[in-house]
């Protein structure tokens, strides 16, 4: 018989790069905070749901009366919250969800539940590198001693632990392959807004020509997703950020890509950098040199 399932919402991150609490942000059109939406998802599948916070942290907005588990492990990061919960109830399996995954919905959660077996870890394979996605995953009772042992050795990255120990890996369907992309910075947030509705974010200045011819370059996994490294394109997009969002939303070849950086004419450029005919625009995924 399968052990009972508890839900754990991880909201103890410091949101350092975002500069404000990600759990309290409203990212979806229903006007609810990320924490509220994620709690509702967990409540739909779990007998009991808990909110993971670090010591001294205020409860994010929209969480109601959910029971709170404060980090009782000093290793930091999401592992501290996961270990605290599993020690609280070692007989249960835990459905763990981070509060900064706005694209995860009931369909994604039900796929995860359907794929669950007796493995210590059940997780989706990253659409990007095939490694397990640890922050929308099920941790069975057998995971606890494994996590304790890694934590004792100073290994605190659940993705690395899962990869090393072996997880039951599920594939995301093509239509949901970007479902586990997260939001880390104000730029990610701005991109997500445009990703959801690129047309609304691109008011065209009056009198401008309707399209500009732009030279595009792609690097790393973006080049692989796009299927090319260079191309010429005529676009009505007024800024580099809108151009990226349009390409991502329109044909789906590239994803929302947290941390994407832009260059215009071989200089770093912010998302609101205006485009002009003849520009060379380069899209860069997060760097991995060294």
């Amino acid at each position, binding site marked *: 018989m399968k052990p009972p399932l508890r839900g754990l919402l991880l909201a103890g991150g*410091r949101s350092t790069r975002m500069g404000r609490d990600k759990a309290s942000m409203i990212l979806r059109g229903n006007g609810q905070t990320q924490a509220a939406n994620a709690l509702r998802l967990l409540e739909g599948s779990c007998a009991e749901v808990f909110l993971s916070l670090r010591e001294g942290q205020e409860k994010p907005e929209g969480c109601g009366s959910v029971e709170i588990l404060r980090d009782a492990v*000093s*290793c*930091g*990061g*999401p*592992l*501290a919250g996961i270990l605290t919960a599993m020690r609280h109830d070692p007989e249960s399996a835990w459905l763990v969800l981070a509060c900064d995954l706005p694209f995860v919905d009931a369909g994604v959660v039900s796929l995860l539940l359907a794929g669950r077996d007796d493995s210590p870890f059940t997780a989706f394979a990253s659409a*990007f*590198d*095939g*490694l397990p996605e*640890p*922050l929308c995953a099920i941790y069975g009772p057998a995971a606890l001693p494994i996590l304790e042992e890694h934590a004792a050795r*100073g*290994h*605190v*990255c*659940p*993705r*690395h632990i899962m*990869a*090393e*120990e072996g997880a039951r890996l599920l594939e995301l369907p093509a239509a949901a392959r970007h479902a586990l992309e*997260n939001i*880390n910075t104000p730029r990610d947030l701005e991109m997500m807004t445009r990703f959801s509705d690129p047309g609304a974010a691109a008011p065209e200045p009056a009198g401008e020509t309707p399209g500009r011819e732009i030279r595009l*370059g792609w*690097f*790393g*996994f973006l080049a*692989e997703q796009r299927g090319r490294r260079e191309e010429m394109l005529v676009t009505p997009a007024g800024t580099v950020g809108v151009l990226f969002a349009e390409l991502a939303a329109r044909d789906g070849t590239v994803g929302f890509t947290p*941390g994407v*950086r832009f*260059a215009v004419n*071989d*200089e*770093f450029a912010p998302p609101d950098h205006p485009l002009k005919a003849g520009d060379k625009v*380069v899209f*860069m*995924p*997060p*760097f*991995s*040199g*060294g």
Partner: protein
Amino acid sequence: MNADFSISQHPLHVTPLREALSSPDCGGFVHFEGRVRNHHAGRAVTALRYEAYRELAEKEGALIVTEISRKHGVKAAAVHAVGDLRPGDLAVWVGAAAAHREAAFAACRELIDAIKDRVPVWKHETYADGKSSWIAGCDHAGSAGNPDHQ
């Protein structure tokens, strides 16, 4: 090509860089060699490819070398490899020379961290099972720091 920072086809030639940082007024010289590891997240790595956005990488790399040289009063240089590498090969080299060792150590550490953070270079790994993937930074390290990510 900038003299202080370059993107270079594998294999790297570091002797001229070392010699350029040699000076009678510098009593301390620290260098860091980043080499290709034969494992990543529990998978055996058999080959690795780096690609760079060369125009921007060399500009940003030169800016980093200039900033850190001024901050610590050191002479510094760095080079990052592109192309096909194997475990053990030299991927990145950073050196800093100063009158005294403290500044050289500090500058060398800051240089490699800034290069990893700011220079547009991407790593593509091939594994023993024949699969391969692009590498991106990992967000799951705790605030206490994480040996997996050093």
